[in-house]
């Protein structure tokens, strides 16, 4: 696609996304009155370069919806912090501002852990509950407080903490990042890639999921390119060549770009599939697609800059 047409396409998609912003400054996933934190963060990241962060209604919405303990709920109306806290921190990290809100979010993430983080459950998984193969000493972050660690919330939390502490790494943050990375590596699928959080159940290997694999690889961007990372990258590259789902393809592009893999053909295919974007009803998906199409033209929101 010619450069002019390309920027026209992105502008038109951004207009569609903007037209769906709610009065509160947030976005719902679909056409509803309930703001989703994931959709809001991804939309703000996708539109951010075109406006001043300090005056962005979405940023003001984010600051207002932060809970007193520093976490963010999954959607407005809920009073419990959730996995979206990591994405909200990434979003505020991209502004480089709002230090107090980011510090509170970091504290919340630091305290949050999968249920295996408790000695009793570690002991149970080691001694009696062995149908799922994993090392319970290596834990990360849950989707919601009270459940086990899973790949996507762990990966987003690692990225958010790495970004936030990039200039002031402490022993505590390093330790927590290391534990999360260890958990991701422990739970990788046998032939590379990641499922939701388990690799073997009743001795049978699980198949990787594209989004979990892409986001886990983003979290491992600073780590050594071990054989497992290479195998996972290779799986993602192959999968990206054939997937037709907008969200999955967009996450493939965002990750392959960070690993300096060629993405031109994939971006063209995404642009063709997405068309004018009006049929993409899920705002989180539309925002992710815009981010993928803009790869290389803006600071990658999930890259850890050193």
């Amino acid at each position, binding site marked *: 696609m010619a450069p002019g047409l390309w920027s026209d396409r992105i502008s038109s998609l951004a207009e569609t996304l903007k037209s769906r912003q709610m009065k509160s400054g947030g976005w*719902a*996933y*679909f056409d*509803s*009155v*309930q703001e*989703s934190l*994931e959709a809001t963060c991804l939309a703000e990241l996708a539109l951010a370069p075109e406006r001043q962060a300090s005056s962005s209604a979405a940023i003001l919405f984010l600051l207002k919806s932060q809970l007193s303990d520093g976490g963010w709920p*999954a*959607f407005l*109306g*809920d009073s419990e912090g*959730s*996995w979206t806290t990591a994405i909200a921190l990434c979003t505020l990290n991209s502004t480089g501002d709002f230090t107090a809100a980011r510090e509170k979010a970091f504290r919340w993430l630091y305290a949050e852990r999968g*249920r295996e983080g408790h000695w009793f459950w570690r002991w149970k998984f080691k001694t009696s509950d062995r*149908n799922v193969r994993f090392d319970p000493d290596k834990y990360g972050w*849950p*989707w*919601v407080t*009270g*459940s*086990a660690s*899973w790949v*996507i*919330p762990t990966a987003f939390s690692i990225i958010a903490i790495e970004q936030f502490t990039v200039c002031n790494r402490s022993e505590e943050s390093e330790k927590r990042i290391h534990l999360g990375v260890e958990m991701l590596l422990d739970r990788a699928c046998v032939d590379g890639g990641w*499922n*939701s*959080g388990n690799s073997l*159940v*009743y001795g*049978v290997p*699980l*198949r990787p*999921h*594209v*989004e*979990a694999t892409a986001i886990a690889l983003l979290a491992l961007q600073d780590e050594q390119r071990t054989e497992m990372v290479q195998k996972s990258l290779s799986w993602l590259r192959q999968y990206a060549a054939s*997937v*037709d*789902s*907008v*969200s*999955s393809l967009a996450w493939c592009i965002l990750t392959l770009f960070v690993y300096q893999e060629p993405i031109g053909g994939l971006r063209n295919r995404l642009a063709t599939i997405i068309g004018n974007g009006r049929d993409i009803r*899920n705002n*989180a*998906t539309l925002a992710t697609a815009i981010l993928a199409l803009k790869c290389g033209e803006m600071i990658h929101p999930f890259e850890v800059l050193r």
Partner: protein
Amino acid sequence: MKLDRRRFLGSSVGVAAAAGVTTEWVWPKHTVSYRRPLSAVAVLNAAEYSESIEALLLDGLGLFRLPVLGRSVLLKPNLVEDLPGPVNTNSALIGAAARCFLRLGAARVVIGEGPGHQRDTELVVQAAGLKPHLAERQIEFVDLNRDELRKVKLKANYSGLGELWLPSAVLESDFVVSMPKVKTHHWAGVTLSLKNMFGVVPGMKYGWPKNLLHWSGIHESILDICASVPIHFVIADGITAMEGNGPLQGSTRQLGKIVLADDPVAADATCARLMGFDPLRVRHLSEGGRFLGNLREDRIRMLAEDVGAPTRPFSVLPEFRYLLAVKS
């Protein structure tokens, strides 16, 4: 009276049973009961997913008096992953059901699902081959993982969860049809119409998978969800089923049946019998038989053919051998 060991044991059991009944009476585990004097089940023979399935299904639905005229119907299939094999409810059956309910006068038919593992719902819908059926009659699909949510106080208290956030699309529908794939399940033993309702619990709040439900007890969570979101009808896809290490990695089992029922417990009990299992040994079924529907065969009226024993029971993981019915 001399208290010997036998009398002592007998008395202890009696006291324990009385205490259980009293506890249940003082602190009931459920505040609703959907059990009726008699439930109806129809087992239809269908060798394959062909174009004739719609006519077969329409005839089968005609055996029931379904109050769907002018009402909104939610079809809740079991769409889990973009995997090959009999993992998901077959799209031909889902499409046929949607068209049948429209023909029966439903004002609106919505297909809703919140896949439990795969976050990209579009990918699952594509892989399941559902898109052409949606386009054909402009049937709406709702991603229950990301729908608008409302907090609901649960009408049973087995899990201790107390309340759950649930999707508006489910709470606002007049008539909920659970459309499970008949499968074994490596945590719950079986996954049928009751277990299928895990899919109404939103991933955006509880994650992928909905792991909090596992920590609160799978059987307990099933009972609480189904007490709070009543299932009005069941269309179980047992044409090609799954045995062994289900619900994702099991083996294909050709069963050749569609099970229709106006009661989810009766439906699941019938499916369990077709699988060669004793429904009383499935915990959520035996307990669900107390208030969610009828489990006993004498409370189930068979509208079409009787449930014959399978030529061989469904294979199960060693942990679930206790499910197998004892041959009489």
